[in-house]
């Protein structure tokens, strides 16, 4: 289908924009320490879209906030690990140094466009303030750039719209404005935390198309956080599956959709309706994720896994590299574990 067309237009280079190594983030709360992210590793290449999927509370937002430098400290602490953005370790920067990167090299799009814009400032002010802070350009030039951005994200009459306030726009329009704000300083990395969850379906599709268009035009790298596997199927190049603060499986889109190896990934895929397998019953994953106040020593999925073995309970599985891109943390990958029957496979 249009997979091939997309490949032709899309340029993913092998230049790494971002490298996240063994990232661990905790929150000190009255109830104890929440280990929200417990050792996350991934790389991001120039021009690609990496989707991070997983159940609520698995640490997707904490991971992206950590990259963006938005973990509130306290109560949050980056306990370990490195976030290398073009070779520079973001965890080592001072707040002032970080501000030179925020909104300029790395930008973020938030989930709810109804609350992400300041109700008391005009769209124009909100669009240009980042630009004027970082790039030291004049008012007129900033305005011109803002108009260009609004055109790019598909907002009609941009000159007039600049003077208006957020409440004068619909939800879809506001999300376009949020995207324009994120892109105005020409970032290399865009983090989108559930950018379409709060929108209705037709608007969702439009926004996703906008992402693809922008990526083609700007060669930007995108981290897309979502619950929605439909969204993932549409625009991701690679997929990371998170569970209880860890990436349990990561791989190219095809690998994750057609040859998922981790039982949790398979569970996720089984829990969404598919058009090509109409008669198959939906199987939501039973149970709930473990308590992150005292996460299990072994595989966190043990309590919910149909294949759990003795070892799973005690030792965290090693990471098995199935291909250049495909990695999975599961004891079933061990030769000693019994081979899974093909019929259990989804793809």
């Amino acid at each position, binding site marked *: 289908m249009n997979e091939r067309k997309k490949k032709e237009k899309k340029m993913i280079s092998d230049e790494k924009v971002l490298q996240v190594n063994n990232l661990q983030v905790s929150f000190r709360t009255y109830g104890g320490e929440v280990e929200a992210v417990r050792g996350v590793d991934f790389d991001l290449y120039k021009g690609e879209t990496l989707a991070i999927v997983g159940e609520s509370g698995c640490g997707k937002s904490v991971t992206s906030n950590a990259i963006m430098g938005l973990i509130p400290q306290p109560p949050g602490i980056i306990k370990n690990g490195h976030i290398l953005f073009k070779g520079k370790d973001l965890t080592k920067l001072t707040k002032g140094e970080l501000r030179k990167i925020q909104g300029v090299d790395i930008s973020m799009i938030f*989930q709810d466009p109804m609350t992400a814009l300041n109700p008391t400032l005009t769209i124009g002010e909100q669009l240009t*303030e980042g630009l004027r802070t970082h790039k030291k350009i004049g008012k007129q030039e900033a305005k011109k750039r803002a108009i260009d951005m609004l055109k790019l994200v598909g907002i009609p009459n941009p000159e007039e719209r600049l003077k208006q306030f957020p409440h004068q726009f619909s939800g879809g329009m506001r999300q376009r404005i949020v995207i324009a704000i994120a892109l105005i300083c020409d970032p290399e990395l865009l983090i989108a935390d559930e950018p379409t969850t709060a929108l209705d379906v037709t608007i969702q599709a439009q926004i996703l198309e906008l992402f693809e268009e922008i990526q083609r035009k700007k060669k930007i790298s995108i981290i897309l956080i979502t619950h929605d596997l439909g969204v993932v199927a549409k625009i991701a190049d690679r997929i990371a599956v998170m569970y209880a603060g860890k990436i349990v499986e990561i791989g190219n889109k095809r690998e994750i959709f057609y040859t998922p190896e981790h039982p949790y990934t398979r569970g996720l895929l089984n829990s969404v309706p598919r058009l090509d397998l109409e008669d198959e019953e939906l199987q939501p994953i039973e149970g709930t994720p473990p308590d992150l106040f005292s996460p299990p020593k072994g595989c966190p999925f043990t309590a919910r896994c149909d294949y759990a073995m003795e070892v799973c309970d005690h030792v965290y599985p090693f990471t098995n590299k199935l291909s250049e891109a495909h990695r999975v943390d599961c004891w079933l990958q061990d030769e000693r574990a019994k081979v899974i029957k093909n019929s259990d496979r989804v793809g």
Partner: protein
Amino acid sequence: MAKYIIKRFLMMIATILIIATLTFALMHTIPGSPFDDERTSNPTIQANLEKFYKLDEPMHIQYLYYLKSIVTFDFGPSIKKPNESVNELLARGFPISFELGMVTILVALLSGVTLGTFAALRHNGIIDYTAMTFAVVGISVPNFVLATLLIQQIAVNLEWLPPATWSSPLHMILPTLALATGPTAIIARLTRSSMLEVLTQDYIKMARAKGLSPVRIVVRHALRNALMPVVTIMGTMLAGILTGTFVIERIFAIPGMGKYFVESINNRDYPVIMGSTVFYSAFLVFMLFLVDIVYGFLDPRIKLHRKEGDA
């Protein structure tokens, strides 16, 4: 915006009219008359005086004269001090009361908002606890108690500041302090809680993600939103401060309107009561009107809500 202002303006006129009518009614229901004093007990003199002040006319005629005096803004001479007109009393007393009230509001707003903002930014820190302890004390101690304490300690015992009157900026410090402490505390608490809420909003997180400086985030993005509730209570607070001036003026022997007002009620000095009440309430209602307009400017959703639809 124009429509909004006109609507508020008409409401303001109606409010003043209602207050004026109530004042008239109340004044004539309280027993006694300006001539209860033994010095003026000669019946002929009294009759002449009543004729002069139109007190011999039927009530509804008196009411019409009264309305006329309001519209023309001429309240006639005082009964007790016949050589002085009510307008003169107002012109003498009001500027002083106004000064006291405005300085108080300014002090309360500036210090309250600053305290509240810092308390919110250092949430659960020492500044926060100190400021909020101060706020609780400030709210619970009545201004006349505070005034007495301040005079006793700072003026009499320490002799740092003059104890009374309104003759120099130095004289203004203690009365302002006494009057402003309560409102400051209320504003500080309100600013703190609304600031804490605003700081958790997505648009603040977004401002951080833009790499803006913390000062800019607080001043430009948070403060304006956090001040909405403060502006909302400014109206009632103004009323409180203005009545507070009466008490404080008496304690510090400040020759403001409070003095004339209290005297006029004791004396049943009708023209002065009517004049000062109507003038004062008109002033207050006008201030509320201003607060509404400021609110409209702060919150664009009010200003434009009928002008344009959603995109």
